[in-house]
């Protein structure tokens, strides 16, 4: 069964360091999403890609966060510098349908980030 792959599963870093997360969506899925989930809360969308283009990054803190999906396949989310409040689970999801409607999102296992 096809899955969304994420790495690393866990990341511990110190405040002000740079961190990067990687996501490989299900093959053929055009849309890719990055979410942040704080413990006890629902996922919050950070950025959405359609192929290699960003279609929504309105909730991405652009002063420290960046995301790219250069060839429209896998994606990287970077934080520089990391802050204590960035400690959370970072989830990647992908969906097949190219333009929005009736998109079922399939999630990866996530990367648990702890900033010390």
């Amino acid at each position: 069964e096809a899955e969304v792959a994420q790495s690393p599963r866990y990341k511990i870093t110190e405040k002000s360091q740079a961190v990067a997360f990687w996501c490989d969506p299900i093959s053929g899925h055009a849309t890719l999403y990055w979410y942040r989930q704080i413990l006890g809360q629902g996922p919050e969308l950070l950025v959405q890609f359609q192929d290699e283009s960003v279609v929504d990054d309105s909730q991405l803190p652009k002063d420290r966060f960046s995301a790219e999906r250069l060839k429209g396949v896998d994606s990287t989310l970077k934080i520089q510098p990391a802050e204590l409040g960035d400690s959370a689970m970072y989830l990647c999801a992908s969906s097949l349908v190219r333009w929005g409607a009736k998109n079922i999102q399939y999630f990866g296992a996530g990367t648990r980030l702890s900033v010390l």
Partner: protein
Amino acid sequence: EDQVTQSPEALRLQEGESSSLNCSYTVSGLRGLFWYRQDPGKGPEFLFTLYSAGEEKEKERLKATLTKKESFLHITAPKPEDSATYLCAVQASGTSGTYKYIFGTGTRLKVLA
């Protein structure tokens, strides 16, 4: 403001004790409503999607229903393995022809043997 609210926040059931979880929403231009199950330390697992009021979906002990203002996830004769957090998400019209996804905070279900 678009909003998704789930209740209760937490629910403890005895094995076999049926109940319902609620997801109420206030969004402009609802495109779809999704239910996910999330186990501790894992990503959400897709359960159901509903698109129009009156629609129902079933899977094993779970049944999801949708009205114009809310959705229910009914759990019939639950088992301990049904223990998880159940998340509701709404897909709504965004800006410039895009779609946005709004998740609720989830209901933490614990089923006791």
